């Protein structure tokens, strides 16, 4: 793990000099700002039961679905396309170091972008006189959820990137996997047939991996270790798959 920090700082630098990072960041902040002001608009019209933070984080999947692919699609596929993967892997570094360094860089940027939405809450806090609008619990719960689930989502994006030399393909693949994980599973859990007796085990399983339930729990301040474990093990699995993805491609090239 000697070279982990070298690769991490290199990758961060490369992300920061890259125009597409800024495009993604601007899109992200514009969208989040739009959502946030939309939420506040509703509150100004009529009092609501839940706090703005809860509603705001309910929509976390919209930025995840396009941000994560944008941030991670280049990671490995671009190196493969340019051929620099060959120079990278013939230096005395291990594939694990390469994957972890790239992963950490993307994840840190992802966290940073989300952290910058904290500015919205700060502005709200500063200018809204109504203390009910700023509920600290759901906000922290929401950020904690984003940080933990992000570990998994970024790993998914990295894995997709390790599979193709074409970054567009990698991006679409990441989008599809994330869509299935977040929206698809939620939809499946809500299907009518899941209420049948015979489907009980499947329903329980879907309920266990259903992202929106995790989000609800986090917003209410419940941190279930099983849920945390689900995201952590998912991330580890995806990272192992990414490492294998790179090495198997060499073996069978």
């Amino acid at each position, binding site marked *: 793990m*000697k*070279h982990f920090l*070298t*690769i991490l700082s*290199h990758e961060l630098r*490369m992300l920061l*000099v*890259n125009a597409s990072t800024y495009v993604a960041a601007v899109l992200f902040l514009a969208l989040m700002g739009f959502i946030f002001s939309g939420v506040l608009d509703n509150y100004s019209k009529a009092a609501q039961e839940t706090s703005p933070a809860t509603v705001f984080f309910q929509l976390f999947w919209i930025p995840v679905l396009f941000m994560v692919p944008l941030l991670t699609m280049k990671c490995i596929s671009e190196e493969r396309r*340019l*051929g*620099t993967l*060959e*120079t*990278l*892997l*013939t*230096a*005395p*570094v*291990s594939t694990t170091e390469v994957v972890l360094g790239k992963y950490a860089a993307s994840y840190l940027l992802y966290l940073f972008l989300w952290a910058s939405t904290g500015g919205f809450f700060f502005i709200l806090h500063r200018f809204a006189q109504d203390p009910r609008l700023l509920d600290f619990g759901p906000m922290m719960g929401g950020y904690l959820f984003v940080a933990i689930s992000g570990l998994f989502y970024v790993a998914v994006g990295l894995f997709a990137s390790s599979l193709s030399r074409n970054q567009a393909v990698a991006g679409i693949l990441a989008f599809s996997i994330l869509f299935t994980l977040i929206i698809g599973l939620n939809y499946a859990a809500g299907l009518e047939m899941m209420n049948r007796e015979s489907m009980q085990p499947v329903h329980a399983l879907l309920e266990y991996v259903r992202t929106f339930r995790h989000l609800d729990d986090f917003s209410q301040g419940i941190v279930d270790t099983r849920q945390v474990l689900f995201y952590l093990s998912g991330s580890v699995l995806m990272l192992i798959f990414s490492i294998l993805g790179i090495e198997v491609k*060499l*073996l*069978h*090239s």
Partner: protein
Amino acid sequence: MPDDSPAIEVRDLVKTYAGVTAVNKVGFTVARGEILGFLGPNGAGKSTTMRILTGYLPATSGMVNVCGLSVATHGDEVKKFIGYMPENNPLPDDMRVSEYLHYRGRLKGLARAKLSIRLDEVLELCDLKRVRHRIIGKLSKGFRQRVGIAEAILAEPPIIIMDEPTIGLDPHQILIVRDLIAGLRGRMTVIISSHILPEIEMTCDRVLIINQGRVVAQGTPADLRREVFGHSSYALEISGDLEAALPEVLAKVEPTLAISETGVPDATGFRKLTLATSREDDLGEALLRALSADPRLRLRALTRVHPTLEDVFLAATKRGWEAIDAPKPTSK
């Protein structure tokens, strides 16, 4: 690193890509400090062999030792011994030259303090000082190539492997790269591949010719000339009675001398002739005396023709083809 082991030792190396055999039982040794040229047409298996040497690709079977260590089992240590420039010299387009070299130096385990000194040395050596702050993607091909070479020699590894370092360069840039490689002589073991001969002939101590995944010839450039041709030839410019007098004189000098090529006479009546013989030693003086002594012949020029490596290459790869086309022992 055991000191008596050769820099590189390859035996019975085989590599198949999904059923296609790219390298077929290749074997060779490279002594320390030697510059080896890897010569072969496109698709011969040069890049594949080099990738296996660097540990980037696993071999299908066979043994590859670098500085006495097996690449298959000691991959991580072996990578420290090798500076490698892959085919087409891939470089990140959006970094500055010094940034890139710094990053690579850190990956190769150079400490910060040592790295900045070494970086200056390498930039100086490869004449990159002027472009050290330029973006790599905007450099000309010659500069990019030198960045690749600088990267390979950065950590002062005992072995340098470069895949087609002069491809796509203009003659002046080729000269610079060739000088750079020649400057490594004695300090590092170097393997370069090419399908262009003159630079291999000039820089390399030994040449390995491969075709269709097999070694078809190896040796010093001089050895190869002898081995593949087994004869020497002479070029003359001559006029006079070439039908009767010339064969008569030639037979007196050396019975195996024969006219292999005849040119057309020019305005002054002289024509170019090529003579071939199986004699190894120089017949130049004897030929000159005999030809000028004969009053029926007028000699204007005589030189011994050295077959170029190009000819060796053609002959050797053709031999490779024949060996593959006719696997049965030929009855010649």
